[in-house]
């Protein structure tokens, strides 16, 4: 009997271990145990019985069921199991514990233990830890059946999951703002604006897929056993829903469409500036995880994202409409740049252990929790300060101040980081609020520019 409180947690399923004093304390919380053994006919058999725990002796005195004698000449097991049915919802408080050992007829002495308690290892984490077992089983099943058997999703859901389509809001905000600024300067063509949005979206999706390829190859996604809907990548390669080869072809296809639209826009605008912006965007996006630069592994991921979803996207959209660069769109681009980098920054918090294992030197890997929280507040307030400074200096129209209405969201996220920093699953709501912060600020800035355009037209 060891004194260790719990088995060490690591990637892979939960390991069996030598029984601990904690195991016996936990067993004592169950109202009865199920005793199991292999009977003389070779079948498992089980019977429920009463028990006590002798913590000092490390043994379990057990009741003697009538007519079903518990054998003393072979290994037996005791199982405690708890579940609370929640009608219409499912279950909660799932936990069970199995101890193996020998009985002398009255007292059980454990020699091995295994258990799961969803209060300690949430179901989603337990599932992620078990992914290698699923892959092994399906590989063996393929051999057994003589055909490849892989997990599947319907084409729609697979496409949604593989490309991480919902994250396209990060592209929509800077592109629409760039178009709005250009429109406030009297330059707006709807169909080039639409092409910009489509091209930017394809580039973003291509970058998402590329990042998944390299995070899978580096082992970062495999090591991550606490992914959430906001973090941990698409996991389609980890789950073997799509092969790395399939992802590579998909990324190439997405980049091909994005490149074709980009070149069409360069041809239409005759702007070499746009060409350079497009090239910079693809380099930053791919180099984010791809060798040789692997920006995110060198602690430059947040800056790369700020550049890509700030100046590159917003200025690109502006140049498509006007053919030239400008200070106003550049300064404005810093706002979504910061806020989208903050999405990454917060989403990296639950990934920090697996990122560290894979050598990704993200800011949450390098900084203390206190520093990460302080960094969030400073950066979020800096985004709002840029809006105020832009309006005060006359660079932005005054209705852009509408964006300040989102300050409470930033403060709620900061508060949420204090409470939920170490809990990936409760942090999900905070991550959702943080995604909303970018959408709300971007939306309010867009509305501010539309209001300014209308006022200007009426004046």
């Amino acid at each position, binding site marked *: 009997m060891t004194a260790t409180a719990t088995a060490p947690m690591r990637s892979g399923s939960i390991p069996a271990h030598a029984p601990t004093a904690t195991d016996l304390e936990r067993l004592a919380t169950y109202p*009865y145990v*199920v005793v*199991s*053994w*292999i009977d003389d006919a*070779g*079948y*498992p*058999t*089980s*019977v*429920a*019985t009463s028990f006590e725990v002798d913590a000092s002796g490390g043994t379990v005195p057990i*009741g003697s*069921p*009538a*007519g*079903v004698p518990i054998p003393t000449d*072979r*290994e*037996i*097991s005791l*199982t405690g*199991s708890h*579940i*609370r*049915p*929640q009608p*219409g*919802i*499912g*279950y909660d408080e*799932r936990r*069970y514990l*199995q101890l*193996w050992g020998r009985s002398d007829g009255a007292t059980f002495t454990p020699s091995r233990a295994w258990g799961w308690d969803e209060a300690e290892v949430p179901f*989603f984490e337990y*599932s992620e830890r*078990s*992914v290698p*077992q*699923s892959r092994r*089983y*399906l590989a*063996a*099943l393929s051999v057994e*059946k003589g055909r490849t*058997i892989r*997990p*599947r*999703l319907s084409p729609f*859901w697979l496409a*949604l*999951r593989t490309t991480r389509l919902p994250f396209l809001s990060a592209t929509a905000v800077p592109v629409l703002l760039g178009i709005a600024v250009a429109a406030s300067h009297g330059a707006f063509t709807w169909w080039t604006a639409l092409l910009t949005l489509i091209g930017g979206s394809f580039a973003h999706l291509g970058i998402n897929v590329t990042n998944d390829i390299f995070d899978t190859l580096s082992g970062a996604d495999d090591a991550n056993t606490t992914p959430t*809907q906001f973090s941990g990548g698409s996991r389609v390669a980890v*789950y073997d*829903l799509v092969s790395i080869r399939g992802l590579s072809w998909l990324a190439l296809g997405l980049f091909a469409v994005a490149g074709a639209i980009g070149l069409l826009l360069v041809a239409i605008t005759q702007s070499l500036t746009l060409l350079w912006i497009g090239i910079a965007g693809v380099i930053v996006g791919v180099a984010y995880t791809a060798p040789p630069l692997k920006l995110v592994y060198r602690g430059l991921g947040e800056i790369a994202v700020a550049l890509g979803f700030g100046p590159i996207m917003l200025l690109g959209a502006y140049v498509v409409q006007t053919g030239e660069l400008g200070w106003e769109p550049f300064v404005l681009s810093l706002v979504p740049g910061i806020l989208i980098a903050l999405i990454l920054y917060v989403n990296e918090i639950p990934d920090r252990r697996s990122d560290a294992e894979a050598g990704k030197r993200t800011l949450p890997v390098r900084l203390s929790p206190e520093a990460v929280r302080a960094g969030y507040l400073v950066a979020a307030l800096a985004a709002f300060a840029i809006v105020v400074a832009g309006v005060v200096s006359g660079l932005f129209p005054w209705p852009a101040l509408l964006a300040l209405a989102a300050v409470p969201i930033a403060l709620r996220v900061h508060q949420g980081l204090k409470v939920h920093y170490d809990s990936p699953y409760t942090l999900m709501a905070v991550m959702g609020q943080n995604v909303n912060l970018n959408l709300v600020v971007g939306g309010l800035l867009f509305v501010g520019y539309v209001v300014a355009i209308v006022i200007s037209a009426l004046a």
Partner: protein
Amino acid sequence: MGWLPEPVERLLEVALVGELTVIGRGGRPITHPLIPLYDGTHVYLHSSTLFSKKLEHIKADGRVSLALTDPVAMKGNPDRATIQGTARVIDDDPHSDWERLILQLWQAKEPAINDFLKARVALPLFFERAVIEITPERCLYWKDGRTDRAPEEHVAPSEVAA
């Protein structure tokens, strides 16, 4: 048609959890809490490929037992039973076999599963599942869960066991 005594069938019809014991490596009994389903003849359990060691064990040795012991999981029914039998794993297509074979039984017993099915995209491997079909061969039944009294023993008619 099944041969299990009526009180045991009643337990199977309401049980939200039963303890499936399989024979692990080296002849070790390994117990898994699972939701049992019953069609009047066979007992069905099912398992995600995520938690598929039990399936490997059954493929190696199909002899299993299922204990129904927890009055909370039996909706207040205090009776207890242990069913021994031979199991086979149905996993020709882990993506959809289980939907065809046991989804209706599962939905009837656990309607909340419908919400999980809508979230299939979030848990794709959880829904790659195999069905465990148990043919009952012997049954021990404890009225009122009194295991301090000898159980009633019931054995399958010879044509079923064969």
